[in-house]
């Protein structure tokens, strides 16, 4: 199972409702109150980055904006804070999509890390300009948790596309 462009495996086409469902589940996970525990991954950013890389023609800055806004409302953050970060994240992920998919999942994760960090940095800058308190360097830990989660997440989100329609031993691929 190597979900890269190099592998010979052919995936089923993704269903649009599954993309949005996974984003909604990520939104729900984000709403779970975790207190000030450091290193809780930013689920929406992760799933969004994943789909922006996998499906750059379908998921992009628009989805980033909408889900960022829903997160801003649910978390009581400044309106537009997550939206701005996710719009930039989606654009960057769309931009590197063609390149990243040629790498192995582990190397893909290394490509995603700076994108997640840029999104977090944007949020910190926005809030610091607005006069908030710097939350400490542990705030950026969540991007690194995201890095660790990239591999299991890739497997989980591609699972519906792995199922073969019918098995044919004579088929070349």
């Amino acid at each position, binding site marked *: 199972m190597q979900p890269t462009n190099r592998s010979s495996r052919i995936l089923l086409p993704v269903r649009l409702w599954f993309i949005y469902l996974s984003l*909604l589940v990520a*939104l*729900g*996970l*984000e*709403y*779970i*109150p*975790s*207190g*000030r525990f450091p290193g809780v991954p930013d689920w929406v950013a992760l799933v969004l980055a994943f789909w922006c890389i996998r499906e750059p*023609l379908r998921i*992009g*800055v*628009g989805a*980033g*904006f909408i889900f*960022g*806004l*829903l997160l801003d*409302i*649910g*978390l*009581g*953050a*400044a*309106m*537009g*804070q997550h*939206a*701005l970060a996710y*719009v*930039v994240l989606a*654009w960057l992920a*769309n*931009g590197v999509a063609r390149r990243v998919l040629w790498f192995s999942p582990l190397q893909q994760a290394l490509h995603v890390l700076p994108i997640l960090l840029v999104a977090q940095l944007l949020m*910190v800058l*926005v*809030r610091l300009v*607005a*006069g*908030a*308190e710097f*939350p400490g360097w542990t*705030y950026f830990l969540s991007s690194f948790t995201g890095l660790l989660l990239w591999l299991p997440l890739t497997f989980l989100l591609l699972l519906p596309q792995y199922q073969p329609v019918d098995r044919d031993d004579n088929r070349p691929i």
Partner: protein
Amino acid sequence: MSLVGHQPPPIFRRGLAPVARLLVFVAICLAMLVADLRFRYLEVLRNGLSVVTYPLQMAAATPADFVRNASRYFGTLIEVQLDNAELRRQQLGSGERLLRFELLEQENAELRGLLGMAQRLEVKSIAAEILYDAPDPFARKVILDRGAQQGVEAGLAVVDPSGVIGQVTRVHPVQSEVTLLTDRNQAIPVQVVRNGLRGVLFGAGRGRLEMRFVLPDSDIQAGDRLVTSGLDGVFVPGLPVATVSAVDHDSDSFARIDCEPLAGVERSVQVLVVGRAAYPPPPPEHWAGRGR
């Protein structure tokens, strides 16, 4: 664009260029940020869209509720007994003080009546429990388990047994959001108990408070107790807030006054939401337009 005016075939048509699309959305986001953080215009939009996120939030809070209730259920008997003894002791002390307080309140009302002064305002209070820290890591906020349905309103003070911990800033149907005193965007008008000197207390981050805009030659010293002045028309006057921990009279334009909160601002769990039952009369007409 071809010269004869043909449109490109539909498979190549993908709307705006990526950079243009990015810039459009970034512009919208920046406009929203300014409108929200600077002018607070977007509360209506926030309330409207929270209808969509609210069910999801409730569902997500269920596991946290479960963990909290389970840990309370399995609390040991000895803990409860110790707690109970401590509470009985406190109850005895406060009961005696309450008796005297009632007498004094009555006396105060009579004296005020004799002098023809306005009566002290009625106070309403709602007991509540802090559920968890608000998820926004940039602010010092907590979520209470009482909301609009129980009569909580934005602007009410939140106190624990030893003093003010914060102010209700946003109200949901069954929950409300409290901004703690130590948040950098939170201010509370206070008064020194010893001599009645008024000032405004701001959060300074990292669990500290700072009294600003007090002239360097003012009579204030370390150890002074600060209580709410009630001049804002929002807070109930006389609630204990903080003690002065250090004063630097030598700074350029204003004295630098560090304070420590009296209440367990970032620790308490059981709190009381306190507010005026009726609002004071509006300020005179000619005050309008001179700032908030």
